[in-house]
């Protein structure tokens, strides 16, 4: 209205947006085009997702379907192997038993299966990209803004194309989680390698290392503490993302939380939330203890 416009002309007052018709047309073209592309590739996409889907189902069955004593024993052994700390193993045992006691064993195992697998995938994707980015300044200049977008874009937004392409289910959920969890892995691998003492990499070169020898003998071992921080963060991001991913059909604790929100089940919501926190703490402590153990001999390594 002219009265709100301090008597300015209309174009300087209300932002001259494009016509509603144009916008609608644009939206329609892009959405339909995208959908058409997806439809024409449907067979290929199915061929790629079906085996993954089957694998995820099998993994979930292995975690949630096996006798709980067996799973608990394996989990505790894994925690011991990474942390070598009785305290952390004991804490894990207590946390898991409490979770089982409040009836969340199955759901927790489903979540655990998902998070473990997503973390492995994120590390497998993130590590080589991080290494490549550390080697080439050009690649780093391309990768880092992409990572910035991946981390700032609200996760709900990129769920949309994922769902359009892959539909609803575990696979799109996994993809969403991996997209969300992979940036710290890439970033910290890149950073860790770039921070390796220049004189030590120079020594590797002076003794005639090939690029591969330099990577395996020097860069990765010396960057390992930083890379482990990346793994740790990746795990944490996966855990927080499985809740969001439950919106596209991932089961487990996240789904319970989602239902609790919809139905205002206060107690259920908190129990599931605490179960997630418990898993997060277990993962965090074990991976940090592992990282520390790797650094045992290096306190005075560089000054």
């Amino acid at each position, binding site marked *: 209205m002219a009265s709100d416009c301090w008597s300015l002309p209309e174009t300087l007052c209300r932002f001259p947006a494009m016509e509603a018709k144009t916008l609608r047309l644009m939206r329609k073209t892009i959405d339909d085009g995208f959908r058409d592309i997806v439809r024409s590739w449907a067979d290929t996409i199915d061929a790629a997702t079906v085996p993954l889907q089957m694998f995820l189902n099998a993994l979930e069955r292995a975690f949630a379907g096996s006798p709980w004593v067996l799973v608990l024993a394996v989990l505790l052994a894994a925690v011991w192997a990474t942390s070598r700390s009785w305290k952390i193993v004991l804490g894990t045992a207590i946390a898991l038993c409490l979770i089982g006691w409040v009836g969340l064993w199955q759901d927790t195992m489903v979540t655990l299966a998902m998070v473990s697998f997503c973390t492995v995938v994120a590390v497998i994707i993130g590590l080589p990209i991080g290494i490549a980015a550390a080697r080439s300044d050009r690649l780093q200049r391309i990768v880092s803004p992409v990572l910035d977008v991946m981390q700032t874009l609200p996760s709900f937004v990129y769920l949309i194309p994922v769902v359009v392409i892959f539909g609803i289910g575990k696979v799109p959920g996994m993809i969403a989680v991996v997209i969300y969890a992979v940036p710290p892995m890439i970033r910290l691998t890149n950073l860790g390698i770039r921070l390796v*003492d220049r004189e030590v990499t*120079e020594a590797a070169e002076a003794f*005639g290392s090939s690029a591969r020898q330099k990577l395996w003998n020097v860069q990765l071992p*010396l960057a390992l503490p930083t890379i482990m921080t990346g793994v740790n963060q990746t795990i944490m991001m996966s855990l927080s993302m499985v809740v969001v991913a439950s919106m596209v059909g991932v089961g487990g604790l996240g789904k319970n939380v989602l239902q609790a929100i919809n139905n205002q089940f206060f107690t259920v919501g908190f129990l599931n939330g605490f179960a997630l926190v418990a898993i997060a703490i277990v993962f965090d402590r074990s991976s940090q203890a592992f990282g520390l153990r790797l650094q045992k001999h290096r306190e005075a390594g560089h000054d």
Partner: protein
Amino acid sequence: MTEATPILPVEDDDEAVTGRSGIEIRNLYKIFGPEPERYIAAVKAGLTKTDLNRKHGHVLGLTDISLSIPPGRITVIMGLSGSGKSTLIRHINGLIAPTTGEVIHDGADVCRMTPAELRDFRRHKTAMVFQKFALLPHRTVLENTCYGLDIQGVPRRDSEPVARHWIVRVGLKGYEGSYPSQLSGGMQQRVGLARALANDADILLMDEAFSALDPLIRLDMQAILLELQSELHKTIVFITHDLDEALRLGDRIAILRDGRLEQVGTGQDIVLRPANDYIAAFVREVNRARVIRAATVARPVAAGEELPQFSVPGTEVLETVARHMTTAGVNHARVLGRQGQLRGTIAISDVLTAMVTPATAPAGPLAKG
């Protein structure tokens, strides 16, 4: 008398070590920056380091370096911080490529090698010791010493005995299983030395290898290096910013200033005949008694002159000669060459004069040099 000929120089029967190739550095220029080729012509025509930096944003690292590094000797490259020492030594194993110029070893130009040839050259012909040791923190002393051989693909079964041998030689027996962080700086650099020696390379590059060590430890390391060298006869390029270290270790010394070679010669040459005021200022405070050798000060024997009984080796530095002569209570001595031949005579007064005469005022026997 066979020794009527001029007496200098004393120590350089260099060609005793023959059949091996040294390193020939020829007309080396290095400009740091995005477009070094663009300015090389201007630099060759005399564009200064300051102007290159201010007007074109490039750094002039080295200017027209030609230096021949003899095999089996220790060549010291000396200069203040930022004078281009590290840049120069890194050209020898191709860690830095020159803007123009050549580094010839065994008939091959290191600067023209393919990456594979260069790797091979580094693995088998050179080894390097670093200022801050550059050890691998996650490897034990033994594993660090094996490092060069690991890279060559030598199995541990064969490399371990070699590594153990060198660990003993540098005085670290018993520390094979320790990690670098558990060792003092001096001990870490011994590991650095053992790692380089285990490579069995002819060329040993040492970039300020002892500069990070405490003075006493540094003297120790210098002694170890000299002792090993007396039996290994490697071609050593040793970098330092410390003149005393240069004089102690160097068979030849090259002085760098702002990327240019100011003077190349033996320690005596540099102390007795500094090429310019810069070097004269550099060597002014040097303890000459520890640098100048008896043969340098010896006077030729005149025909029919009566020879003193007491004798000293010509390679001995004046400090030692003075001690010997005063202990023996003599004023005159014969000076003998390496094979025990007569090289001249020396008087205690000559010794004292040489010890205190400033380099800029040549007098007495020194004038003959």
